[in-house]
């Protein structure tokens, strides 16, 4: 699959990594949900893991430019997000599937994705092709002209993925994309992730450790708003070691082992290697 | 008490109550300004319309399927919801009499609220709770040409009297019958069918 590359995109490669956070603090309501996070991510598929309330969604939302950081620095595609007024250039290169994906129920799938691509200021000439390609990539081609409200939960999720990738983003943020997908669709989705990861920085927030193990090139584990672990999936599996943590697979055991170890030493600030 | 409180909150009753309260206060305030007796009846009718239109939102929960699937016997509860809410609106609007001269007779307020609330309930069953106020609002708007001071309500034939029930004087039998039919039909259909999703 060839993706459209604009001149602006090829020019802007002077930054070190696609997403870079230093001492990042982001508020979610009154709570400081992300509290002193250091993180660096580049092209590839990054699986964002963590228990409920760890700050995953808040982190994703701040990278998506929905939330403004309360402290620290957040650099996305070489642009500092803190306090910037004009985020237009950056937003053109972001694809985002929110955890609670809202949509216009009366639009057809194609119309909705076309609408989103218009909002992402895509060139008009490229739009119809890009919309069709996005729909095909998530396997919704046979439902493209059905109303959004007639879709099942999994199909809505796939439509959400399609709208996120329609503009060939350089940063793709997917908050729980696999919720509601059947096993077959999840396999397809993993394949899609691998394909996207070759030239895009994909951040997938999920609870499904096996998705991460199967499709991600990089695992990010956070807890209480801080980074606990970052490494390749093999490291996650290896982290379990002799420790017989809870879980049915090596990755799951590694996940729970790292978390437990982190919490045992939670009184002292810890950054995982 | 707690299940009741939760139920009320799930049905946006606080917001509805606020809206109805605002209507009552506005009614009272306008009552201080307008002294033309016929316009006072019009004001009372519109306040009743606003109060009942506000009820529409409460006729459906946040999630249609979740409501459907829960183990409560819905029909009596739905009927009770409409009846209690309607009575509350009547009470509030009639209570404006306590702080000043009443805009319209309590009987007239009760008849109009009953009929309009029935229409809202019918609307919820037919077109869904969020669109339910369409029915009473459009009916009233169409009839208002015959409302004093803009016109005189027809006195015959009977079908015209029934169609303009909300602007008829309180002693008009056909108008009372029309309002009662709407109240019963609306409450029953909503109790049996529930809100259309």
């Amino acid at each position, binding site marked *: 699959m060839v993706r459209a590359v604009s001149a602006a995109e090829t020019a802007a490669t002077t930054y070190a990594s696609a997403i870079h956070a230093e001492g990042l603090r982001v508020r979610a309501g009154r709570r400081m949900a992300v509290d002193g996070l250091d993180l660096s991510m580049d092209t590839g598929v990054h699986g964002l893991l963590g228990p409920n309330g760890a700050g995953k969604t808040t982190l994703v*939302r701040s990278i*998506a*430019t*929905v939330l403004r950081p309360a402290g620290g620095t957040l650099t996305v595609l070489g642009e500092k997000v803190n306090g910037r007024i004009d*985020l*237009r*250039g*950056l*937003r*053109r290169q*972001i694809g*985002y599937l*929110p955890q*609670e*994906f*809202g*949509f*216009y*129920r*009366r*639009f057809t799938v194609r*119309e909705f994705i*076309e*609408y*989103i691509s*218009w*909002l*992402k*200021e895509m060139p*008009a000439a490229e*739009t119809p092709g890009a919309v069709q390609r996005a729909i095909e990539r998530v396997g919704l081609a046979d439902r493209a002209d059905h109303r959004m409200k007639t879709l099942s939960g999994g199909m809505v999720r796939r439509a959400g993925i399609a*709208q996120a990738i329609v503009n060939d983003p350089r940063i793709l943020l997917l908050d729980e994309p696999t919720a509601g997908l059947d096993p077959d669709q999840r396999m397809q989705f993993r394949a899609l992730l691998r394909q996207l990861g070759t030239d895009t920085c994909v951040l997938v927030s999920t609870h499904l450790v096996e998705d991460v193990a199967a499709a991600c090139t990089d695992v990010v584990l956070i807890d209480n708003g801080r980074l606990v672990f970052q490494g390749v999936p093999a490291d996650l599996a290896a982290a379990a070691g002799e420790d017989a943590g809870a879980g049915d697979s090596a990755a799951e055991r590694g996940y729970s082992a790292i978390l437990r170890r982190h919490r045992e030493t939670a009184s002292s600030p810890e950054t995982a290697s | 008490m707690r299940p009741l409180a939760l139920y009320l909150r799930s049905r*946006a009753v606080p*917001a*509805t109550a606020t*809206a109805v309260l605002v209507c009552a206060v506005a009614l009272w305030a*306008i009552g201080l*300004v*307008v002294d*033309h007796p016929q*316009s006072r009846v*019009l*004001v009372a009718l*519109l306040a009743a*319309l*606003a109060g009942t*239109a*506000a009820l*529409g*939102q409460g006729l459906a929960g946040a999630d249609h399927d979740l409501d459907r699937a829960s183990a409560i016997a819905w029909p009596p509860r739905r009927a009770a919801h409409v009846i209690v809410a309607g009575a509350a609106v009547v009470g509030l609007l009639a209570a404006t009499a306590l702080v000043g001269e009443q805009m319209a007779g309590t009987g007239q307020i009760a008849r109009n609220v009953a009929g309009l609330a029935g229409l809202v309930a019918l609307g919820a069953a037919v077109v869904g709770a*969020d669109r339910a*106020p*369409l029915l009473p*609002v*459009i009916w009233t*708007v*169409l009839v*208002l*040409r015959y409302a004093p001071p*803009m016109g005189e309500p027809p006195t015959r034939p009977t079908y015209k009297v029934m169609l303009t029930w909300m602007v008829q004087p309180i002693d008009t039998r056909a108008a009372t019958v029309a309002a009662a039919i709407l109240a019963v039909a609306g409450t029953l259909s909503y109790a049996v069918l529930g809100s259309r999703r």
Partner: protein
Amino acid sequence: MGARILRIELRRSVALGAAALIAAVGVFVLFASNPPYGFWMELVIFQRDILQLTWPLALAAGAWQGIRERRSRIEELLATTPRPRWQRVLPIATAMAIAAVAAYLVMLAGAAAHLRHLDGYFSLGAIPLIALGALAMVGAIWLGLAIGRLLPSPLTAPMLAVIGFFSLAVSPMIVAQDSRDPGTFLLFPYLQGPRDGGFALQMLSARANLSQALWFAAVAATGLALFATSRPSTRVAAVLPLLLGAAVAVPAMPSTLSVAWIQDRRATEVVCTDDEPEVCITRLHSHALDQVRGPARQALAVLAAKLPPAPTRVVVQTADKGPEDPQPRDTLAVRISFFEDGVEYTSEDLLFLMLIGAGVPPCANLMGTREKPETEYLAARLVVAAWLLDRDLAAAQGRDEGPEGPEGPLAREALTAVRGLAADEQRARVTAFRDAERTCAEGDRLDMLTGAAR
């Protein structure tokens, strides 16, 4: 691309559904509250009048659409898109404006079926009235969008319909407390027709139209700006058009409504047949020219045969011009109040009506008072028509003035008396009657006809 999005919004928003609903309500009211309209201008003014109902409905439709982003829980996703809000809302605002205009025009087209003469005179003064009505609807729908966006609750739309209707119904009573018809009535979306009821012959002055256009445009601009702005600080600036509009339009408004309504001169000008003898009719009634042409020429022929020298042309005038001046001898002048009550006249009826008073309009100075009605005068005029046509009064059909009126029995009695005279005497008396009518000379007309013979 914007065009594609506009098409999507038109098809998928509430725009067209709301337009259909509003148009249906409007057509229903236009049909139900009046007998068929005689003239376009009556319909156009009444359609402006019922903005009292349709304007709040448009406001509610706008609010319903305005809460869509909240209702669909799509705000989070939209917040991450680069396109600025004002660009994002342009297609939906346009779609809603199209719906508002369409609703207004469809309403007019639908109600046109309730016109008695679809081909009747269409005053140029009706065009700004229609355009301003449509503009008021656009303002309502945009204002609704803004309110729905600022108060995104499901209660907003129904409440706005009621509150909007209510304020339109009650506020005139408050505005009109000190003077009867202040010009500030023109600030309201609905329009009150001229008080004297002569809708068909009047139009709004250019000044009234312009100041109203300015005000409606200011309301619409503020609605759109409030809907399109994203920051509270710019929201304050959005109210600016409203203030500016008020500052300019309010002083520019005519001081009273009666000044705002002016005569439509074109409506009362006459249009004539191309061929001789000439038959003319006011432009307002020009649709009836074919209908009156035959009876008019017949009337000329009757007069030429029985009462020479006869007039050579016929002018059918509107009713409000009661003559006191001498009438030209070459013209048969007819007043046509009888065209407006919706009764269909046969050619026979028209012929009779044209010859009442020997084809001279009744003199205003001879019309009686409430204490002493003009029964005898009208009876005399009827007698002349029946005499000219050699017809009995019982058979003749006149509607508001004629044998069925109070003057009927008197006229029948007088006709018998006249016919009892010698033929020469009859003609002499009728000729004298016509000469007196033409100059509106004082005197008892019935006595002039029957005189000593009685």
